[in-house]
């Protein structure tokens, strides 16, 4: 898929789509459209970042790693970007950045990105705002992890994935979901089973289908509404079926 096709598609990256035409035109020569493959590690902890990514489709988790444990602390899809440390004058991430649900993205090398993010540019402002959004998201999730039940958190996670996939059905194994939640797989199985019994989702061979979004929202903790409120999303209310 070439750059111009991708940005005229309804699933374009929202940060890039918000740029004035001239600014975006200047970026085009440096943008490379690349696939995002499931379990692809975009950044390892403490390894210098080579490129930043603006997702178009797909779901990326930012994971904090502590010995053998991992937990998702932020989620990124087409509303955002990964590689934010570069904007903050830091050349590496603290945690691991992994593609959890496949898709595609625009990739740009660090040097070109730095040139594009001059303080007088709209991209700079957008990234300032996005940094605040990221802080808010992490601050909410950090507390959610302690206070809310696995079921509430699972509902929140599923909704966050659905928001970034633009479809009601997507591939997400229980293993990956367990990693995102920082729990054992058995814990996820139990919750997934309950949600399926209640008709909120369908879970079959690593594919999740969201059947009843509004009930899923009701079952999620307040963190979902708070986190997603910060994103400007042109989203019509879903019924089943892709948009």
């Amino acid at each position, binding site marked *: 898929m070439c750059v111009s096709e991708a940005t005229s598609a309804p699933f374009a990256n929202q940060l890039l789509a918000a740029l004035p035409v001239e600014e975006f035109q200047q970026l085009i020569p440096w943008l490379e459209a690349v696939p995002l493959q499931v379990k692809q590690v975009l950044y390892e902890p403490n390894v210098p970042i080579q490129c930043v990514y603006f997702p178009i489709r797909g779901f990326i988790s*930012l994971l*904090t*790693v*502590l*010995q053998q*444990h*991992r*937990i998702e*602390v*932020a989620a990124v899809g087409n509303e955002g970007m990964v590689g*934010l*440390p570069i*904007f*903050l*004058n*830091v050349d590496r991430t*603290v*945690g691991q950045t992994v593609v959890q649900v496949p898709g595609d993205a625009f990739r740009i090398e660090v040097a070109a990105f730095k040139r594009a993010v001059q*303080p007088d540019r709209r991209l700079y*402002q957008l990234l*300032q*705002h996005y*940094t*605040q*959004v*990221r*802080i*808010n998201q*992490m*601050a*909410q*999730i*950090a*507390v959610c*992890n*302690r*206070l809310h039940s696995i079921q509430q958190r699972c509902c929140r996670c599923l909704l966050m994935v659905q928001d970034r996939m633009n479809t009601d059905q997507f591939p997400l194994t229980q293993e990956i979901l367990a990693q995102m939640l*920082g729990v054992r797989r058995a814990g996820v199985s139990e919750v997934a089973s309950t949600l399926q019994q209640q008709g909120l989702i369908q879970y079959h061979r690593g594919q999740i289908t969201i059947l009843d979004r509004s009930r899923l929202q009701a079952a999620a903790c*307040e963190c979902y509404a*708070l986190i997603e409120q*910060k994103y400007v999303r042109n989203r019509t209310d879903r019924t089943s079926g892709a948009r």
Partner: protein
Amino acid sequence: MPNRLLNALPAEDYQRLTFHLQSVTLSLGQMLYQPNEPIEYVYFPDQAIVSLVTVMEDGTTMEVSLVGQEGMVGIPAILGGHTTNTRAIVQVADGAMRLSASILRAEFNRGGALQNLLLRYTQFLLAQVSQTAICNRLHTLEERFARWLLLVQDSIQSDELPLTQELVAQMLGVRRSGVTVAAGTLRRAEIIYYTRGRLTILHRQNLEARACECYRVIRTEYDTLLGNSI
């Protein structure tokens, strides 16, 4: 200049701010900013300690970042002033330098040393919040409390911490009785001593042994991100 960020500024940059920096004494429990409120002032603590806490719908709060001498309270002011979901609350009442957010922004927009320091400090905040996210999931109340005490002690460089259990409870996201239990365990092990409003660290090494590894991670991250400039 005790505050490490201010201290790291080149003399010329600091000169521009001197006139606008006000020395203030923060009071215990004072809220420096609230969720969804624009930030009017930023604060560079000297000996004061400020908790950044996320506020839940039912009023429960839990700390996601700690700010002392090594940092600045009010980072949202340089990120476009969009709403934040955290509250900044004073845990240790002491001195700080206060600066109007608009003056800070003007200096930040010059693109010099202050901008670089504050951007890197923002990354440190993100790292702290990320670490807290996993710490909250994996570690016990006692481990979290010990980690927090170490960070506070590092910042104010004293063995005596003027704390109240009520505010510590808000920081840990528990009822006050939870703090009493955690503190009691540390006291019985003669690691800390406390009376009303004052906690003394008796044995730093043993406190480090009780803390989760998140303390080391956060310390190292600060030194990596800002240690060279400071």
